[in-house]
């Protein structure tokens, strides 16, 4: 497999008045060419911080990358000096954000903002860059692109702004597009349009996508592989089918049971995950999910579980997958019997 980006044991901390928050605690993943990796998790699990640190977007201080490596095309991209970082940021890796309104400059026209990227990174002239910007807007299916390129962000709707952001991120034909909750602020019909656009561009450009989201339905639509994050760690990773049909971490199972399904068991009641995520000022010694886990054992509170391979493509960080542990399916059946 053609690995483009390889992240190993990434650790990120933030110094705050309340102490040091360990936001990312040893995250590893690979991205291969043309695939979509979805990073899923709840607010505060460290999914955005992970990709922001790759892009050099973490303000330092208070942020600090305390460990790990990230290799893009054979080159470490962590802790680069700003001049170096600018060379790959927006060129080899493009990024789009949740809130396009606050990510674009309100005082510049959309066309000029896209053209700026081309001028800085590609050394294009003003006119050439603007012409290319219009073409990019057309590629993201913005109607009347030449006219729209001369408009300002406030004249665009949320969906159109997200298209413009995608156009901008494509300016330098990046190998990877990082999309941080790209459709969270959009309505489902517009979300469907944007997701379809991303899939289309991925096919035509053979681009990899890292999709950050909390929405498992979006993951099911988009992802080839999935990394589930909890409390600053990847607790389960695998192909999209591994994660949905062979979920192995109790947290992943819990997430699935907390959402309504429109397919089978459609009137089964929702089982919420009780409690809330741990305080990352003082990360737990053992498994981060232990306090909320219905299957927690003594060892879970005392020792951090290591990642256990479940199949060639599938890994979970849970003591239940240790060879001496009880079988989670059996536990599940027992529980169902009790409930019944």
């Amino acid at each position, binding site marked *: 497999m053609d690995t483009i980006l390889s992240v190993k044991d990434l650790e990120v901390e933030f110094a705050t008045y309340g102490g040091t928050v360990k936001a990312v605690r040893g995250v590893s993943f690979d991205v291969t060419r043309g695939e979509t990796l979805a990073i899923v998790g709840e607010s505060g699990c460290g999914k955005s911080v992970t990709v922001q640190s790759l892009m050099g977007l973490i303000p330092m201080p208070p942020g600090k990358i305390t460990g790990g490596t990230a290799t893009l095309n054979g080159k470490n991209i962590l802790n680069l000096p700003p001049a170096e970082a600018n060379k790959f940021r927006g060129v080899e890796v493009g990024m789009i954000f949740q809130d396009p309104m606050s990510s674009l400059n309100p005082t510049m026209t959309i066309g000029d903002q896209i053209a700026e990227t081309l001028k800085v990174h590609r050394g294009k002239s003003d006119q050439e860059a603007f012409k290319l910007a219009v073409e990019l807007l057309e590629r993201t299916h913005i109607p009347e692109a030449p006219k729209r390129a001369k408009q300002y962000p406030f004249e665009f709707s949320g969906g159109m702004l997200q298209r413009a952001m995608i156009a901008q991120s494509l300016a330098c034909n990046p190998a990877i597009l990082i999309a941080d909750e790209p459709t969270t602020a959009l309505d489902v019909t517009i979300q469907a349009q944007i*997701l379809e656009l991303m899939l289309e561009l991925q096919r035509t450009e053979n681009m990899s996508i890292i999709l950050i989201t909390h929405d498992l339905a979006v993951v099911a639509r988009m992802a080839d592989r999935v990394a589930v994050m909890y409390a600053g760690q990847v607790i389960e990773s695998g192909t999209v089918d591994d994660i949905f049909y062979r979920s192995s971490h109790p947290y992943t199972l819990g997430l699935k049971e907390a959402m309504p399904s429109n397919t089978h068991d459609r009137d089964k009641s929702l089982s*919420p995950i009780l409690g809330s995520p741990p305080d990352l000022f003082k990360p737990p010694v053992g498994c981060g999910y232990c306090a909320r886990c219905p299957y927690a054992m003594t060892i879970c509170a005392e020792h951090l579980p290591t990642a256990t391979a479940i199949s060639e493509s599938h890994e979970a960080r849970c003591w239940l997958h240790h060879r001496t542990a009880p079988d989670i399916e059996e536990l599940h059946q027992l529980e169902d019997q009790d409930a019944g």
Partner: protein
Amino acid sequence: MLVRTEKLKKHFMIGRGQTLHAVDGISLTIDENEILGLVGESGSGKSTFGKALIGLHPKTSGEAYYDGERLPDRFSTKDHLHYSKQMQMIFQDPYSSLNPRMTVLDIVGEGPGIQGQQSNSEIRDKVAFWLERVGLNADHMSRYPHEFSGGQRQRIGIARAMIIEPRFVVCDEPISALDVSVQAQVINLLDELKQSMGLTLLFIAHDLSMVRYVSDRMAVMYLGSMAEVGPSNDVFFEPQHPYTQFLVESNPEPDPNLERRRAFKPIVGEITSPVNVQAGCRFADRCPKVMDRCLVETPDLIALPGDRQVACHLFD
């Protein structure tokens, strides 16, 4: 039937002689002890409808009835005092809907305080009871909103509405700001309160799967008008109105196999502006089945078998 609206309209004058038709003639009934889910895209007027119904916005025209009694077009302070014993609201944003300078005791106890007839210690006991009831620690009543997480704040908002022991509650996107695992906690709580208190709920949301799961009947709004109403499962699994069909098709499912099989053609275009709306079907400009008639004649709700209604000329 507990709540009924008849051609309810709420227009906003936005200057230069322009009118924003936020809610444009909604007729709807909500039965006692029912959860009615109201879905629609942003800008479809669903929140404005909820607010106009319980008197937070004066109505432009049309009528609203509560328990057979006609609600005033513009609520006076006295009306608010009277109807707030019956009707309450839970807001979308658990951050901006709680006053940061008030303690939880003040926030939750404010309603009973205004309603009068209770001593401070009675109110305090009641607040403690309701905090426990919604799953919060009663010892935390002297804390301020910023000391709570999003899900906990939403529970404070629920306690504030429920302490009045209303019969009808408008829930305006009560779970949109919450994480998946916490959404289920809040939904189960609302469901449990509905059962035990015999509540009637208007549940406004844009998450179709959640609305289908929660509500008995579902109403779909588009650009200030009602597109379709009916039992939730029927509307979701057999949508009749072309807009509802698009909405359901756009709704992704947490199931990769299903998503791979999906014949996907996202709806073209975006919701149009509700300013100075002309006659005709609101959805005509995006509808694949548009006819000449749709451009000139506004469709009324047509009754279909199985307690369903749809506003579309195709069914005439």
